[in-house]
């Protein structure tokens, strides 16, 4: 135990003094998630809010052929401006991106309308350009609404109620709660927590295995009167403590960052108070041992620091796989998922953010299976550390 503590204390001191380790454990890992979140959320708020309220400048060719339509568009907060000279010019201009949308009203628009045949209007847009499509969709919507209004007037003129052509009345009932809606977006957080905790231990896992070998400090260490198990366990313990610190910082950073994000404007109320933060820490705690053991295991197979870095960057991405697969296949949470590390933590976190009660059995299986996998891998690490080939 004394040996284990001595190894632990030395690894912690050694790595606290290493700027690269500190930056990745205390800054890069924990801050990456909140920074990305702030960016994405602010962007999506900006987009969703700029829709109806903002005035849309719509380029129209031949506006003089349809004065009523222009007036109607004005009432829908669409301001008609002069477009390019003709159809050819309009297509070129939209292609070049000078205009997002151009509406072309042909000269016979008025006569077609008067004759009661569907009056032709062209909407020129680049459907591959999502930003421009938003405006095009609004233009199309406004035109369709005008058409509907005209149709209603025509039906009324013939003594038919406009309701006749409206056979169905479809009404959406949204049962999602504000915290439920936020789960979709905030569910991503769980990966950032896992990313942060892995980043926190990554350099220690490398330093204590491949790094120690590359530096030539491993061989004299193994010649000391201590067992290799003690050395390995002390190193894994130090790695775990850095990972726990990183996780804590990451949780704290998210807690603070979410406070500054205008979720109410998106109709969301994230359930991420101090109690959820504490519970999230406990839920992710078993994953720390597993992560430390995996990274140590992978790093101990590599020949050099550089090689270990390459392999461990793959390990950083691996925990997303189960989360990704389940969300792509949109599988409903089930008991079996609780046996899968990273996925089980993700699902439990999403439940908490949705403000739904946690199933104690699920929590127990998640913690138990993740811990068991971690212990197994730690044992394998210790076995590998006893190999002669360790010195390379």
């Amino acid at each position: 135990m004394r040996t284990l503590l001595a190894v632990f204390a030395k690894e912690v001191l050694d790595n606290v003094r290493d700027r690269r380790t500190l930056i990745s454990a205390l800054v890069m890992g924990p801050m990456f998630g909140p920074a990305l979140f702030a960016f994405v959320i602010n962007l999506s708020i900006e987009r969703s809010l700029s829709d109806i309220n903002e005035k849309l400048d719509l380029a129209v060719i031949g506006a003089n052929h349809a004065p009523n339509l222009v007036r109607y568009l004005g009432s829908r907060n669409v301001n008609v401006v002069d477009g390019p000279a003709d159809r050819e010019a309009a297509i070129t201009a939209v292609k070049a991106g000078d205009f997002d949308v151009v509406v072309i009203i042909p000269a016979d628009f008025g006569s077609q309308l008067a004759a009661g045949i569907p009056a032709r209007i062209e909407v020129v847009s680049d459907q591959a350009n999502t930003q421009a499509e938003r405006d095009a969709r609004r233009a199309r919507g406004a035109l369709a609404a005008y058409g509907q209004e005209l149709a209603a007037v025509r039906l009324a003129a013939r003594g038919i109620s406009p309701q006749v052509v409206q056979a169905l009345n479809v009404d959406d009932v949204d049962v999602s709660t504000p915290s439920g809606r936020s789960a979709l977006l905030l569910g991503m957080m769980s990966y950032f927590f896992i990313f942060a905790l892995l980043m926190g231990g990554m350099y220690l896992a490398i330093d204590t295995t491949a790094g120690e070998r590359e530096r030539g400090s491993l061989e004299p260490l193994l010649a000391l009167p201590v067992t290799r198990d003690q050395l390995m366990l002390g190193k894994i313990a130090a790695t775990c403590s850095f990972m726990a610190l990183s996780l804590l910082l990451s949780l704290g950073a998210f807690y603070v960052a979410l406070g500054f994000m205008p979720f109410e404007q998106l109709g969301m109320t994230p359930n991420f108070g101090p109690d959820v933060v504490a519970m999230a820490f406990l839920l992710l705690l078993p994953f720390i041992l597993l992560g430390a053991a995996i990274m140590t295991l992978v790093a101990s197979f590599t020949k050099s620091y550089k090689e270990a870095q390459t392999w461990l960057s793959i390990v950083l991405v691996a925990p997303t796989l189960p989360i990704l697969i389940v969300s792509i296949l949109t599988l409903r949470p089930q008991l079996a998922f609780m046996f899968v590390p990273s996925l089980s933590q993700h699902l439990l976190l999403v439940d908490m953010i949705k403000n739904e009660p946690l199933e104690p059995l699920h929590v127990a299986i998640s913690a138990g299976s993740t811990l068991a996998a971690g212990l197994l891998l730690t044992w394998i690490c210790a076995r590998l550390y006893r190999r002669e080939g360790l010195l390379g």
Partner: protein
Amino acid sequence: MIAVDGIHKSFGKVHAVRGVSFDAPDGKITGLLGPNGAGKSTTLRILYTVLKPDAGHATIDGIDVVADSLGARQRIGALPHGAGLYPHLTARENIAYYARLCGLDEQRIEARVDGIVELLEIGDFADRRTRGFSQGQRTKVALARALVHDPQNIILDEPTNGLDVMATRSLRELILKLRDAGRCILFSSHVMQEVAALCDDIVIIAHGRVAIDDSAEGIRKHTGCKDLEDAFVHAIGMVDDR
């Protein structure tokens, strides 16, 4: 006291050590001499127990290096070839870490580290982090670290590699000091003159076998060569002929 009896070691198809036997008694400096790749390092690695022999036995003060490797390590201070330090720790912290791992009492560690710092005359840079140390400084700290638990048996693998004249000289003086204190010292080198100048007994190894195990004087007599270097070449030739 180190006793080696017919040890063999192979790495895949390479038979690196083929039945090496010799004794390194207390109060003597035993030199393991041989060309590069002769099996010197492998033999020493077996003695400080990071490798296991495929056959044969080796004991440290009568303790078998395989059966009780932990007990054997307790009686060894080892300086492997190219031993590295922890660059973020000071020299003193590097030494204290090893003292702690060797199980020294926390109260005794400071005094012990002070003592070893004085013995190796590394006080000038003992409180600096070891990043950027010269090869000589690094070797001295690594040696201090290996000696911190006051081991009876000291195994040094090419300790003078990369050292300048002054550093080699002070290392030589230290080795003599340790011998006079009754320690068993076993060190390897491929430099003839160094071994001749320092060692009481010389074990010449070539192709994984012991060519000659004798004093410098005995080797000259045995091979009929006046010059030790000629004797060395002659001895290696003897193994080649077998």
